[in-house]
Every structure is written in C-alpha cells, then in structure tokens.
C-alpha cells in the first residue's frame, strides 16, 4: 500500500514526499482508480499532461471539440457550458484532490503535477483506447 493510504483525512503525503513515491503508490490506491473512472477526467488529465498547463475554459473547449470529433457534428455553446459546469464542480476538484493535477479555482489555471511515468502511460493508454 502507498503513502496516500496513511493519510486518509488529508490530501496524501506532503509535497516534498511526492517525488519519492513510486508508481506503486498512486497505482496501488483506490482513490486513483476512482479518479480515473470517468472518461472526462481521463481526457482532461491526458490533455493537461500533454500541455503542462491549461485552463478551465480551454479544457471545456477540448472536451467539446472531442465530442464534435466523435459525433461528426458541430457541437455548440450548450455542450461547452455543460462541460464548464462539470469541470468546475466535479472533475477538476476531484483530480486536484488526489493530486493528479493542480487547479486554481480563482484563476481557472490547471497545471500538471509530477507524475510517475507508469501513471502517465496509464492515462495515455486509457485515452487512446477510445480512438477511432
């Protein structure tokens, strides 16, 4: 079991310890898999890992754009507004809470954290699984 399980109330190990946490730390935790158990969160995490830094606004655009690719239609403001709301209230707080990314609620800035390559690969593979 990893470090995170020793801190059930808090947000996991203090920042200084993150670098020493091996892949087994995150990959062995239920909290990680719960975070990953939603396609929007996998996609958001993938995009943030690929670009290092994004925003709530841009992530809403990206999720909408990927919907448009899959539906082969134009996806409009309604869809994007819905994604903004879900990102703000559900997905970004969830991912930030398990330290898979950093989310500043005031500025809307989302940044990648230093994830183990094993975790990064899992995220990438999970998104690639929905490629067409």
């Amino acid at each position, binding site marked *: 079991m990893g470090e995170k399980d020793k801190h059930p109330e808090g947000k996991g190990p203090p920042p200084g310890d993150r670098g020493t946490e091996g892949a087994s730390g995150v990959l062995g935790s239920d909290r990680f898999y719960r975070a990953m158990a939603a396609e929007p969160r996998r*996609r958001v995490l*993938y*995009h943030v*890992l*690929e*670009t290092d830094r994004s925003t709530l606004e*841009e992530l809403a*655009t*990206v999720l*909408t*754009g*990927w*919907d*448009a*690719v*899959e539906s*082969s*239609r*134009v*996806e*409009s*403001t309604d869809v*994007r507004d819905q994604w903004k709301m879900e990102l703000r209230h559900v997905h970004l707080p969830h991912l930030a809470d398990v330290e898979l990314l950093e989310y500043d609620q005031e500025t809307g800035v989302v940044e990648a954290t230093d994830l183990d390559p094993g975790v990064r690969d899992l995220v*990438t593979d999970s*998104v*690639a699984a*929905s*490629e*067409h």
Partner: protein
Amino acid sequence: MFETVVETVERRRKRFVVYADGETDLEEQFATRNVDVEHRPLGSRGPGSFLAIFEGEQFRGAVGLDTLETLLAPPVRRPGDLDDLSPGYRALFEVLDGTVFATLDRRQLLATTREIEDRALRVGNGTLRVSFQELSVFESQEPVYRRLAGETDLEIHVYGRGDWEPPAIEGVTYHASEVLTPSWAVAFDGGSEQADCALVARERSDHYEGFWTYDDDLAVSVEAEFASVP
C-alpha cells in the same frame, strides 16, 4: 455593389483555434479574410483534431477537422432537388456565419444558394432575390425556381446580365442588368419570420470571395442593394 456590407462583415473578426497534433493545412483549405487563426497543441492520442470557432471571446462551436472538410466538397444535388439539406451541413453553415472566405468555388456557392432556397421554400412567403451573374446560368436552375414559384407565395426576383431570354414564370420577375454581374448573391427576406439570410460573393480571377449570413441587419442591407437595381 455590396461593398459596404462586405466591409461591415470583414470588420467583425473571428478567431479559429485549431487543436491538432502537428501541422494542418487549414489555412490553405479555408483561406479567409476576417479570421485570426491560432494553433494549440493536442496530444496525438485521443479522439482527434478539431476547430474551435470564437467571435471575440464568445465560443460559437466546435467541429472535427474531418467534418469541416465536407464544407470543401458540399453534397451535389440535382436541380429541382429541394429536400432538406442534412442537418449537419446546415449546422456548419450556421457556425461559419459571417466568415469571409477568400477562395470559394461555384459548387460551394451553389450549395449555399440551395440552403437559402430551402429556407425560402419552408417559410413559403416573403421575397427571394438572386443574382447568378448572367441570366443564362438561370437556365440550369429553372426547375428549382418553377417549384419555388409554384409551391409558395414567394415573390422571386432574378438578376443578371441579359445574355439569355428566360421563360416567363408566374411569381418570378427578371432584371437584366450589368450592375450585379461581378456578384453572385442571394437574399431572402422572410417578412415577419426571423428567417432572413443572405449570401454575397464577388468573382475574382479563378474563385469567389464572399460570406453568408443569418444576421437580420446584414441580410436587410443585402436585400436593399438588390432592391436598388432597376
């Protein structure tokens, strides 16, 4: 003709943000006059590349780059074929409203014209004005206009250089005029319905430059220019 309305549209800048992994040739495929194009990175895995369209900061829509390409090769329909365009194609028109394209071809103009004719048919009344540049072009469109005139209360005006004597069709008025020859244009004024729309394209050496719009004020301006032609 139409310079003022074209200038008005060109001043309304749009922003196209292309999300793709690597280069795209979007700017070549869709040369435009009033669009600032940005490129943003996208991971190579995932559903695929897309275009996000903004007017200022206002998001207007997103479309996959593959889907966008259908705008380059619009569905070809036989004259007289006025059944509804696919909703997907119409949605593309709507999201690209007011974009000034620099390199339209005749097939794209015809597809856009059809979209406006479809709308006029569905509304069933008001005024439809169309300039095919030369009246002889109307010859291939005759079945469409017989149907429009026969099945609706539309008042139809057809403009063009008088290089051909078109047949009399009740409900259709012809205006043989040189004034509009450089322009392929269509304007539909649906009266009380919020259905006004227009297409304005000016011929350049081997292509057309133009835009379409569902904006009432712009459509009314186009309609007024038509109406000023004797």
